[in-house]
């Protein structure tokens, strides 16, 4: 299969702490790849490294063979790396304008940007909220603004950071199909999630991180039966790891 993103030996140290150490993996074009791990495993740091908000100490990141490692975040976005943030902080403007912000990178006219933004809002089913302020929306809807904003950058690879966290079961059921729908529209997805059921239901492969290192990679079934993964989550002694 064709690899969209190739990460090799990626390392980030904060002082003496290796938040991400020697991580290597590939994201295949068109897949939904899950990323799990206990709190503090380095998942969000890894997202920050891929999207360029943090500079890595070592290693390389390549998208379709193009080296992103030294690029500033806005150029990586132009190359096709989109992302959402764990803590949703919409800009202080209407829902539609929030989605227009990234579109302005491609379309300079406000009218064109508005039209494109509407199309994306329809995709995430927020078209009726277009003129509302984000603060009047539910958390589930605000998470969808995040997704819409990221989609507006026309990403090839979309990094989703806990887009389901904090939602009630019916909201999860509402937002979950969206991830699949986005993938079906031609966007490859790498996503962090703590809700195991949801994660296992939609990802084709899963990466597991613990203490900055990648400890497992495989189908959901393979990963959940992996001894190292069980140890990372339950904290047993496991000499094989």
């Amino acid at each position, binding site marked *: 299969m064709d690899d969209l993103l190739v990460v090799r030996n990626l390392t980030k140290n904060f002082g003496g702490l290796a938040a991400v150490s020697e991580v290597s993996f590939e994201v295949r074009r068109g897949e939904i790849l899950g990323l799990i791990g206990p709190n503090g495993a380095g998942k969000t740091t890894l997202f920050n490294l891929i999207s360029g908000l943090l500079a890595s100490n070592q290693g390389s990141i390549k998208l379709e063979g193009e080296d992103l490692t030294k690029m500033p975040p806005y150029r990586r*976005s132009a190359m096709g790396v989109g992302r959402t943030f764990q803590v949703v902080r*919409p800009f202080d403007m209407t829902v539609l304008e929030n989605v227009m912000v990234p579109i302005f990178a491609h379309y300079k006219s406000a009218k064109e940007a508005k039209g494109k933004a509407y199309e994306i809002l329809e995709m995430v089913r927020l078209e009726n909220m277009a003129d509302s302020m984000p603060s009047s929306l539910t958390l589930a809807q605000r998470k969808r603004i995040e997704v819409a904003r990221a989609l507006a950058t026309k990403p090839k690879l979309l990094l989703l950071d806990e887009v389901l966290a904090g939602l009630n079961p019916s909201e999860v059921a509402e937002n979950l199909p969206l991830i699949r729908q986005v993938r079906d529209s031609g966007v490859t997805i790498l996503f962090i999630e703590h809700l195991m059921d949801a994660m296992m239901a939609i990802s084709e492969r899963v990466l597991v991180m613990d203490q900055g290192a990648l400890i497992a990679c495989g189908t959901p079934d393979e990963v959940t039966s992996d001894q190292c993964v069980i140890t990372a989550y339950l904290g047993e002694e496991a000499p094989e790891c």
Partner: protein
Amino acid sequence: MRTNKIIVAAAILALGLLAVPLYFTSTFILHMFTLVFFYIALTAAWNIPAFGGKFSLGHAAFFGLGAYAASILYVKYGISPLIGIFAGTVCAMLGGVILSFPLIRLKGPFFTLASIAFAEVLRMVAIDWRSMTNGSVGLNIPFKPGWLNLTFTSGMPFYYIALGLAVLVILLAWWIRSSALGYHLRAAAADEDAAKALGINTAKSHFFALMWSSGLTGMIAVFYVFYNYVLEPGTAFSMDLFSLQPAMNGIIGGMGTVWGPVIGAIIMTPLGEFLRFYLGTIQQGLNFVVYGLMLIAVVNFVPGGIVSLMAPWFKKKKSGESSARDN
């Protein structure tokens, strides 16, 4: 219906403002209006980087650069201030280029501190570079009336010039805020990291905002100096007058909005003159105590500025209109 009403109101306001000098011949009233217009323009220019959350306390630097550039050209070389307007704008923008290094590198209060230092350093340079600036003595604009010299026998032309500047800068600020640059700045102000991840070169956006702001401030300064005839380092690079005052107007009116600077300047300029005149004579500095208290009150109770108090009022008026029609 509503837009028609706004157009009518704006037309009445415009005619009223154009007619002021014809009915009020008192130089004091004319001067007060002129000063308010100058401060609307200065505050609206100061406010452009504030769209992106950048808070400058060093705009006196751009003011002084613009003012000195045009005055030196005129007083020392006899070059018309009409050319000086461009020279002043360009010099202030060059100052903006220098200040853009800390702007892009430093975040939050550190940029603000760097901007203060920048203006102070330039003030020192203006004092010491005597061959050019006449040092602390300053430069006097000779009184030779005429459009080419931007010197007039009555206050009326400057009333219209200042009004024109205020309208120009408000329109530019409105245009910038509703353009791609404006959206990018507002996004960066709300969440710099999210803006970057969405493909925005936030450094570039902040830089362009500062270029607009510094250039406009320098241009306004040229007119202001020719309105006042004198120029010395203490006033041209005055922290009180051209760094703090626009910032105060902006905070009190509503920072990062188009109309906030207008409201702030309309309230604070006459109030400042009044306080300086009445309280300044009782005890020097007492006027600043009142300023300080106002600032604390606004920041605590109306963090969005006075313009944020008026927003719901406008909405109510809109819904009130329809219910009035029902009756």
